[in-house]
């Protein structure tokens, strides 16, 4: 029994390693070659920031789609041509819109996107605070409460008889 368990454990370990290696292999389908390490670093950052539009939830670095390969090629050739990061991003946005950016720019159209979560948090804090306040008021023992008066009278009566209160 133990042997079998360890056997499957080894198997799944081998499988995980295999899958890990496979994804690593996919991620490096066509690594662009740069002589200059600074340019290589810029390339790595840019392809992480740009979205693959075919598979949408992947960036250019992770995607193996043909368009992603073309766009990676575009980025690397623009870097080799001496274009700045801003110029490359502008090139992509002109063609594919802000959607190509994983971090959308802060502007009128994206105001709700950027401020929405903070606004919701604020509302939640406000509602929570008001609920807490209300709870505190109802738990205020100094307020006269006919029910509590009655309970005390009953308890007092029980004490006089000498029996247990409950």
């Amino acid at each position, binding site marked *: 029994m133990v042997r079998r368990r360890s056997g499957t454990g080894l198997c799944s370990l081998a499988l995980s390693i295999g899958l890990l290696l496979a994804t690593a292999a996919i991620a490096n389908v066509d690594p662009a070659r740069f002589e200059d390490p600074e340019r290589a670093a810029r390339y790595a950052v840019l392809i992480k920031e740009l979205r693959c*539009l*075919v598979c*949408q939830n992947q960036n250019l670095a992770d995607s193996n789609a*043909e*368009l992603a390969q*073309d*766009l990676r090629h*575009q980025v690397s050739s623009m870097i080799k041509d001496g274009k700045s990061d801003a110029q490359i991003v502008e090139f992509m*946005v*002109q*063609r*594919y*819109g802000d*959607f190509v950016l994983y971090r959308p720019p802060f502007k009128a159209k994206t105001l709700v996107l950027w401020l929405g979560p903070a606004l919701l948090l604020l509302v939640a804090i406000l509602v929570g605070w008001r609920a807490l306040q209300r709870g505190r008021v109802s738990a205020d023992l100094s307020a006269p409460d006919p029910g509590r008066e009655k309970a005390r009278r009953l308890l007092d009566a029980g004490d006089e008889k000498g029996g247990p209160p409950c």
Partner: protein
Amino acid sequence: MSRFLLPLGIFLVIATFLAVGLGLNPREIPSPLIDRPAPVFRLPDLHAADRVVDVAELKGRVWLLNVWGTWCPNCHLEHPVLMRLASQLPDASGGIVGLNWKDNSAEARRLLMRTGNPYRQVAVDQAGHAAIDWGVYGAPETFVVDASGTVRYKFIGPLSDAIVAEEIMPLVSRLMAPVQG
């Protein structure tokens, strides 16, 4: 009463957002190209490698660009619709220009020979540079360009007869009105 109104209100807001979100197609990304000058390209002609398709020559005419490839199943689906659209487009228009995107030219020619050719001209974009300039990320995609060379409309995915009748043809007629008049 107000105890129920607040949760009901929140529920309605969330439900509305979800309903709208479900109706949206995440693949329909608004094109920044709309109302901007159409990117120009000069690419080899699919039917004669020594000739070029130069879209700058289409200035002054209303024309359509259709991005396709034999590898694209939805393009096959769209093909009969394009054939009917081509027959409706006025002669004075530039017709449909095909952009054969990253395809095997011999296969593309064979397909058009077999099923009919809806295109006035077909440009071969082997490297995919023109497609990038047009912000293409899938096929088929269809653009309408006006006489001044401005992109006026983009449709992502296979055209249907309904889209052609309700959106493309009325737009083409409207864009061509000042040219004819």
